[in-house]
Structures are given as C-alpha cells and as structure tokens.
C-alpha cells in the first residue's frame, strides 16, 4: 500500500499555502499531521494531484490568549496541546480528553486543525469543541471568516470549509470552560476510535445543572447535541435521578448511524450507556 504519485509543495508561510490552494482546479489537499490523510493516501482513498504540506508554517503553531478567548493555531499538535500551560489552566476538559485520542506516537504528529478539517464522526475533538462553544477560523487568499463549531460540522468528513480555505485556528472563549464535565466513550481497545461516546458540561450553580451541554459522538454522521437532554438537566440537582433518567430517555428518537461493527440499535444503546456514565462521572 503506497500512495499514488503527487506533486509535493512545502510553503514557508500561510499566504503561499493559500495561494497554492487557490491556484487551479486540480485536486489539492493540505497535509497537517498526516495521521489520517496518510493512511487514506496509502489506501488510495485520497489521490491528490498536489499535496500542500503545512508543517513549515510557524504562524499556525501558536497558542495565545486574545482578549477573552484562547486561540489555538491549527497546526498545534496534540502533544503540544497537552503540555500547554494555557490549555492546562483554562481548559481541563481538553487535557482530560487528549489521552483518549489514539496513541502517543499519533498524538506526537496529529494536529487539532487536522482533526477539525477531517470531521471524522468518531473523533472526540469536534464534540469537545462544540461543548466549549468554540469557533473555527477559516482563511482563503481572499478573506477570513469565523464559523461556530456547532455549524461547522456538516456530516461524515463534511464541513463548512471550502476547498480553497484552510482551518487556521480554533478559538475558544475562556468563559465557556465548564466548571464540571463528564466524558465517557466505549472503545474496543484504549486509543481506538470510539463506538459511542458522550460529553456533558455544566456551569455548576449550587450543585445543580446549569447551562448544560450534552453532546454524543461516534453514533451519527456528525456530533449530536441533545437540546432535550440539556433542558431536562438544567436547574436540577446534580443527583436528581428523575432528571437524569429523562435526559437519558431523550436519546430515543434521534437518528443513529450504523458502522461496520454496530447497527443503529446498538449505537442507540451505547449512546445511552455513554451518556449515563458521562453524567455519573461529572467532576470539577
């Protein structure tokens, strides 16, 4: 399994990369950490004419505080995210979830921007970014725009990003960092893609659910935010079993997608298990 032939470009800065993406109608793919794109190329699921390697673009590798939000460059690798003092201080949820993403050797190369751009429905980070009310910055040679994470993910490997655009940063409001969060995923082996998973966040107000977000992943074509579950929990005590049962029942009636190993009914069951355990594991 070797990739098909391509032309390799290694732009030194962002504007050169964006110009390449703009330049013609050939099949052009940006290469970030390569931990998903390289296998796809080896399998020949992706056969770009031109590969634009982003690894030399230093301006995409920073984590900075801007006003009241944290800006994470799209080429920040998971291992760097995990070691960042800014992320450790402001977003314990991200730090908690990173060890669930594949394995050390993968996290040493894989980038946040790559995961966001790929939009694998089984990936953790898209759901985490929705839980954190993040915005995705997209740049083309003509303009730059911000899209809310909830609107960005459209379907399986499908996002709001156009082919001439790059994800340049992920912006998370510091005030969105939840006081309590719960996370649970069902996997066959540590680090595998999840069969189902759930993240629950709450801005605790005197031991009750407050501004709760409930998001499922790996069970549908994209992250599934459960507004009804959130409504069922909000305002209730963290130990209110009736409210929690209502929130878990609200998983019913949503559209689940099967994968190679699990049919829709299994996904729905695993979604409920994940949500129950995520709520049960809420911590501060």
């Amino acid at each position: 399994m070797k990739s098909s032939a391509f032309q390799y470009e290694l732009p030194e800065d962002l504007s050169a990369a964006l110009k390449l993406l703009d330049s013609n109608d050939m099949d052009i793919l940006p290469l970030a950490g390569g931990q998903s794109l390289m296998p796809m190329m080896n399998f020949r699921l992706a056969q770009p004419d031109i590969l634009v390697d982003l690894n030399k673009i230093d301006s995409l590798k920073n984590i900075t505080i801007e006003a009241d939000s944290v800006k994470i460059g799209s080429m920040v690798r998971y291992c760097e995210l995990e070691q960042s003092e800014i992320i450790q201080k402001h977003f314990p949820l991200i730090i908690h979830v990173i060890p669930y993403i594949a394995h050390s050797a993968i996290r040493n190369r894989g980038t946040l921007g790559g995961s966001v751009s790929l939009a694998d429905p089984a990936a953790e980070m898209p759901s985490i970014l929705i839980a954190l009310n993040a915005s995705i910055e997209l740049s083309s040679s003509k303009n730059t725009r911000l899209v809310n994470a909830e609107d960005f993910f459209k379907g399986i490997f499908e996002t709001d990003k156009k082919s001439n655009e790059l994800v340049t940063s992920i912006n998370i409001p510091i005030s969105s960092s939840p006081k309590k969060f719960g996370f649970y995923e069902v996997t066959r082996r540590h680090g595998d893609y999840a069969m189902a998973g759930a993240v629950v966040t709450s801005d605790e107000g005197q031991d009750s659910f407050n501004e709760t977000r409930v998001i499922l992943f790996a069970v549908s074509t994209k992250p599934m935010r459960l507004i009804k579950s959130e409504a069922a929990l909000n305002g209730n005590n963290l130990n209110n079993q009736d409210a929690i049962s209502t929130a878990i029942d609200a998983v019913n009636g949503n559209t689940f997608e099967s994968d190679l190993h699990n049919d829709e009914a299994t996904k729905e069951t695993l979604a409920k298990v994940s949500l129950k355990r995520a709520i049960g594991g809420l911590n501060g």
Partner: protein
Amino acid sequence: MVNTKTITVTVNGEEYTNTVNVRKNLIDYLREDLGLTGSHVGCEHGVCGACTLDMNGQTVRSCLMLAVQADGMEITTIEGLPSDGIAEELKKSFAKKNALQCGYCTPGMLSSALEYLNNGGKANKEDIRRHISGNYCRCTGYQAIVEAIYDVAENGVSK
C-alpha cells in the same frame, strides 16, 4: 511535475543526503535507501505500531510520514539504540522476561517503551499497558512485555 526531492536526514548519528521520490514513506526510505531494515513495515496505515521510531526525541509512525518530511530531522531506529543506560536495560529486560517471540513488533515496542521511561513513566502496569496500546504484538499476549517494562521502571539502571 517535480516528483523527487533531495533531503538530508541524521539517522543514528550519521548524516545522509539522498534524492527520494516525494511519495516514498519514511519507513521505506530507511529500509530501502539506507538499508536499515530493523524498523518493520506492518500495516502501513498507522494501526500496528511496528514502524514506530524516534524522531527528534518523540515517537512517530514512520509509515505515516513521507521521507521528505524527515528533511533536517534526527532519527533513531532500533539499530541506533545505545548499548548502555536505560535502552540497554530495556533490551536485557525484554530478553530476560521473554518479551518477544517472533520479534516483529519489538523495534516499535522498544521505541514506545523507551519514550514511556524517558518521560518519567512509573512502575504502574495500567499506565504501561495504556502507553503501549498503540503497538500490536501477536505472540506474547503482552504480559511479558508489560513486566519487562515494569521491571526497568521499578529498578532503573543497574550499576
């Protein structure tokens, strides 16, 4: 269309300059162009961990990197593991505990184990298992591998 590129890579302390096809994976460059066949090609899509090696102090999957991306990097393969210190201790411990049978996973396994120990990994079997979860072994059942790493974590380097 330019399909080759000249790269300079330091491998096991030695500098190499080669012109490579841009689509060539790093593992194939090491094996075919440099003759360093210690790193193994397993699944070629980042799942099995057999091709894991050290690049600039971190483990990477050399099947998920292009050789051209290693330009300017420092790589350590199984051939370049030092014959003293923690690496040597780990090799001895693998032999002592029978932590390999066919040996196909061993270069990648040692690379991951070394990263664990070099980053201050503790003698904790659960943590060790989690760290090597990205490396498949089809012979040992992992128990012996975990014990081999555990022993080095607990006892350190014998004088």
